[in-house]
């Protein structure tokens, strides 16, 4: 099914504006992007069938287009589920390389972009101060930062406590060291079985030679 180019163009405008807003609020990011110029990443989504081209321009600005004839630096092909999997992964670079997304072209810029994204430090206080004024904006930003910090800490504590409960209170999973020792023992056993198997084959061959 062919999508309406105006709808895709509208989505590109919205995405482009949001990305550029974030980049402009993160000091240094635009300069980092400038160093990647010229770079075009083709994103070929098979289901739904949509092609997008993300270009980094000489001034560090990003444009997203739905049509391009010139060659891309790197192309990514897959379904929307594959791309969503990469976006949601804890380590997107690893998910991209080991997942179902097919990559062609120069992959080095993808890793550089991941570094830029990891360094993205958005100053949310600036747009709040622009809208609400410097005092109210700063107060609200302080509250948002405190809430964000608390929720991050809570999430980290919950994760650790859940892990401790599974291992120690509930005894639902053996400790890591026990698991490692078990897997090492299994590997060791596999090697010994292989060696015994080879020895048996050698003895059988020798016996066959003696009887012949």
């Amino acid at each position, binding site marked *: 099914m062919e999508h*309406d*180019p*105006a709808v895709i*163009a509208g989505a590109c*405008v919205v995405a482009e504006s949001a990305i550029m807003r974030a980049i402009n609020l993160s000091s240094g990011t635009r300069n980092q992007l400038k160093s990647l110029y010229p770079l075009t990443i083709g994103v070929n989504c098979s289901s739904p069938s949509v092609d997008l081209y993300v270009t980094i321009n000489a001034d560090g600005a990003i444009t997203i287009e*739905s*049509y391009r004839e*010139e060659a891309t630096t790197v192309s990514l092909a897959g379904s929307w589920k594959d791309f969503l999997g990469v976006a949601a992964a804890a380590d997107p670079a690893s998910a991209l390389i080991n997942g179902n997304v097919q990559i062609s072209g120069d992959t080095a810029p993808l890793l550089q972009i991941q570094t830029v994204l990891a360094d993205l430090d958005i100053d949310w206080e600036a747009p709040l101060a622009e809208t609400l004024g410097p005092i109210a904006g700063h107060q609200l930003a302080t509250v948002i930062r405190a809430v964000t910090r608390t929720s991050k800490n809570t999430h980290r504590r919950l994760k650790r406590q859940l892990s401790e409960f599974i291992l120690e209170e509930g005894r639902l999973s053996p400790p890591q060291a026990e698991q490692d020792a078990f897997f090492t023992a299994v590997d060791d056993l596999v090697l010994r079985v292989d060696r015994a198997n080879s020895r048996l084959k050698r003895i059988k061959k020798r016996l066959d030679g003696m009887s012949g």
Partner: protein
Amino acid sequence: MSTQDNTTDETTDFGFERVKKEEKAGRVREVFDSVASQYDLMNDLMSGGLHRLWKRFTIELSAVRPGQTVLDIAGGTGDLAAKFSNLVGKDGNVILADINAAMLSVGRDRLIDKGTLNNISVVQADAQFLPFEDNSIDCITIAFGLRNVTDKAKALASMNRVLKPGGRLLVLEFSKPASPLLSKIYDAYSFSALPAMGKIITNDADSYRYLAESIRKHPDQETLLEMVEDAGFVDCRYHNMTGGIVAVHRGIKG
């Protein structure tokens, strides 16, 4: 309602009227003289801002590169020319052409305000008789202008003449909606809401009634495709946008 090109040796369409060919340019000029100062505002209101997305896709299709020469015919207020100016860079050249002096004046002022006139030339020209050398232009765009041209076939032939071999023509124009339901809604909107908006914003309902009528008299997608092919272009195709309300036709000079 016909969607064929009804131009004969003697007469042509001016909205739903038949007028002598030599009269049409003058009548069209009156329309655009009247709306020039509020043209972009009206475009935004009439299309709900969609005209920006239609133009954006047209620019993507142009595949214009730095250093190229782009001719934007019927460029009016210069919104496409400003975008092309960035794409061709300091080594390229953009020619903003329009038959209407009032529209060009608004466009030139706007480009000066944006500071983008350094690689843009402004030329008052008739699309049927383009005052440029043969094989001199890399890309020609005409956005929402072809339906106002007196003899469309002659204009397309003139564009073919000035394009370089391999050069690209893009015609962005209102067209025929694919769905009958959308067509009915669109008709009701353009013949009722459009003149009413024109009356409020520019105090000129007649000009916007002409715009609605001229859209209905403009060739549909397939007819225009044939006309582009007949003018000598190859690898011709079109993309419908917003359900076919607008279509962008592309042709390459062979």
